[in-house]
């Protein structure tokens, strides 16, 4: 069975540019998470979806970050405009309800 797929794996952009990350969760997993992870730190939840509904986006900086999960499957996380401090690894995870989370490999974003 395929795991959580994320793309791209790496992205380098200049500040003020937009960027988007894509996630394909494990088939059948209704819960999808986007995390941000800085070097040497644990993941920080940005948003959690149950099917197509964002049930927890309290930590998402809504002035520049947006996310969507159309049809309750794939999800896209967007940053516009990107700032230097957004450089981090963006992780996507999925689960069956409240259960073991399966993570993708992440997208490493570098903002110059």
């Amino acid at each position, binding site marked *: 069975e395929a795991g959580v797929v994320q793309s791209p794996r790496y992205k380098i952009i200049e500040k003020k540019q937009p960027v988007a990350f894509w996630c394909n969760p494990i088939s059948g997993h209704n819960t999808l998470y986007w995390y941000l992870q800085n070097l040497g730190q644990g993941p920080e939840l940005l948003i959690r979806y149950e099917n197509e509904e964002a049930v927890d986006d309290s930590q998402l900086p809504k002035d520049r970050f947006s996310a969507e999960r159309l049809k309750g499957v794939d999800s896209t996380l967007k940053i516009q405009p990107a700032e230097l401090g957004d450089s981090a690894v963006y992780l996507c995870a999925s689960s069956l309800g*409240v259960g073991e989370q*399966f*993570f993708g490999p*992440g997208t490493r974003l570098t903002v110059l």
Partner: protein
Amino acid sequence: LAKTTQPISMDSYEGQEVNITCSHNNIATNDYITWYQQFPSQGPRFIIQGYKTKVTNEVASLFIPADRKSSTLSLPRVSLSDTAVYYCLVGDMEWDSNYQLIWGAGTKLIIKP
């Protein structure tokens, strides 16, 4: 929300048993304890989960005392490939508006030959 405290780093040697303890003094009745492992350039991977007493699977054991204010992840006979960061999480297993998992900085485990 229960907060967890773990050692920042630990060293051990191949073939030894490694125990990593996590403190969660404010754990709530509905909270479960979950441990994840993370290698560089990869997402975290689930290791084990428990509520009380002892849980064992093919890779680890989880010991939880009666007061549940701490838990210990035990890795038997570690190898170099167990070098990774280990995260202890405490979270409510019931879906409600307060459901949340707080990830700390984890414990960086280094296994030496």
